[in-house]
């Protein structure tokens, strides 16, 4: 049995303009040494969920609920100083889009070094050795030369790996990778994921993605739609026997499954539909779906939020 590292309970996020929570009742566990994929389409609240328990929400956004790190720390109740002490050390966020998160006026080496200094590796010589080691571990070629380069001299895949290397500075327990493969080529994409899994073997990884291929490499899968978890369970089961109509719709829209589109458009996150948030686009929807909100029910190891699944 793997130890639970992060337990998120009933996490809700309120937008500044609205009273209703936009992200509603998100609960999940992350276990040490396990990779969990958070899958959903753009704007469904995947990143906001992660930012909420990292306490990095934009101004005037409010989060409620609990996020237990280990036994005793509730991330949502910590003071700003306490959470700052955790970020970069026990919790690491690998943001999407390598290029935009690297500072264009500093060298790669300087920026990895900065992460090392922050986690308290002080003496210059071991720090440099450690920096080169980290770069080699993420598969960057010729670290001493590369360390002198500036971000614009790298390709997208390399920039992403630099962020991976910087994230490894503190040997975190919890790693949140937000779309680490966006904009990367097919083969680079899979090798980036392989590096990520290899490097953080003992940590709990939350991989935010909209890519089924990437999600399939994780042990467990959470599917989100319009700010709610609609289905969650072991990846192999969810992908082979999807139960929620949205998960089924997504799978059917893949090229290899015939490109069947889901009718309609995702709802506005400010005014999500009443009842089940998927009902306006659902082929199985009935009267009850527009009036009542289904709750997340676990059956056969898979949680689903649907009256009929």
């Amino acid at each position, binding site marked *: 049995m793997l130890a639970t590292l992060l337990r998120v309970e009933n996490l809700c996020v309120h937008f500044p303009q609205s009273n209703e929570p936009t992200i509603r009742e998100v609960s999940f566990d992350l276990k040490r040494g396990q990779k969990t994929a958070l899958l959903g*389409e*753009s704007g469904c609240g995947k990143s906001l969920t992660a930012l909420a328990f990292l306490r990095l929400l934009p101004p005037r956004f409010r989060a409620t609920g609990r996020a237990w790190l280990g036994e005793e720390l509730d991330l949502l109740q910590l003071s700003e100083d306490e959470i700052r002490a955790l970020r970069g050390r026990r919790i690491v966020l690998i943001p999407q889009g390598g290029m935009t998160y690297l500072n264009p006026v500093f060298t790669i080496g300087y920026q990895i070094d900065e992460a090392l200094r922050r986690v308290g590796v002080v003496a210059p010589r071991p720090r440099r050795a450690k920096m080169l080691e980290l770069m080699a571990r993420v598969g960057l070629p010729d670290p001493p030369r590369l360390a002198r380069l500036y971000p614009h001299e790298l390709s997208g895949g390399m920039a992403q790996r630099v962020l991976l290397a910087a994230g490894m500075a503190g040997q975190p327990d919890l790693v949140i990778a937000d779309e680490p493969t966006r904009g990367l*080529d*097919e*083969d680079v994409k899979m090798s980036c994921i392989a590096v990520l899994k290899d490097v953080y073997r003992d940590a709990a990884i939350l991989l935010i993605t*909209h890519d*089924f291929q990437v999600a399939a490499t994780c042990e467990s899968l959470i599917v989100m739609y319009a700010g709610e978890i609609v289905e969650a369970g072991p990846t192999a089961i969810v992908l082979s026997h999807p139960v929620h109509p949205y998960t089924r*719709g*997504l799978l*059917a*829209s*893949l*090229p*290899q499954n*015939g*490109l*069947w*589109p*889901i*009718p309609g*458009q*995702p709802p506005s996150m400010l005014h999500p539909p009443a009842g089940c948030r998927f009902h306006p686009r659902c082929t199985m929807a009935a009267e009850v779906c527009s009036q009542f909100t289904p709750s997340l029910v676990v059956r056969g190891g898979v949680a689903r939020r649907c009256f009929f699944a």
Partner: protein
Amino acid sequence: MLEVFGVTKSFRRGRFQPPHQVLRGVTLHLRRGETLGIVGPSGSGKTTLARIIAGILKPDAGEIKLEGRAATFRTLAERRRVQMIFQQPTLALDPRQSILDAVTEPLLYHRLVRNKRQAIERARELFALTGLHEEIFLRRPAQISGGQAQRVVIARALAMEPELLVADEPTSMLDVSVQAQIIQLLRQLQTRAGLAILLIAHDNLLVQAVCSRYAVLDHGVIVSEQDNALLSSLHLSEEEP
């Protein structure tokens, strides 16, 4: 209907470096109403080829023929025959122009309609064809979703009544369910209007799912070209426009 013979193209890289040869003799052909796929890794020259076929770039050497005659893209009528849709639909639209103007402007410029009123009329038809609703007509590109923007770009291309549509990674920036919607839309337009489509993508699975034939481009040359035996019978869904 489209024949491309030995097209080459290089770009300058600065004074002291040799030019970068992106295309080194590409030859391919496309029949009326057919969908040809072009796949290849990034940097293989896919987009450059697309832009040359659409007449946006001039090749260094080689020839492009439409219906047996060399395409010069000199007259408006000739430029209308090949239209292009882009990878980043929100960047392919003028941020300060409303959705409606994005489609009526080319109609007026090409004198396909007599006045603004007719242009709006025609734009409405095109928006209905591509599944866009009236309420977004006056919005700007930043106020609509990526899928909607791609529909606008497709409507704008169709306004020119093209024979060939060059689709350069039309769905790689979109979510999978939106990808399915856009691809189905292209398929329906193809059967309705007899369009030929050149579909450029990096996703092998996508090309294999929709193209009857596909070519693999690598380092500026076509390394293989084959009929798509795997073409699964594609379902045209009923409910989606």
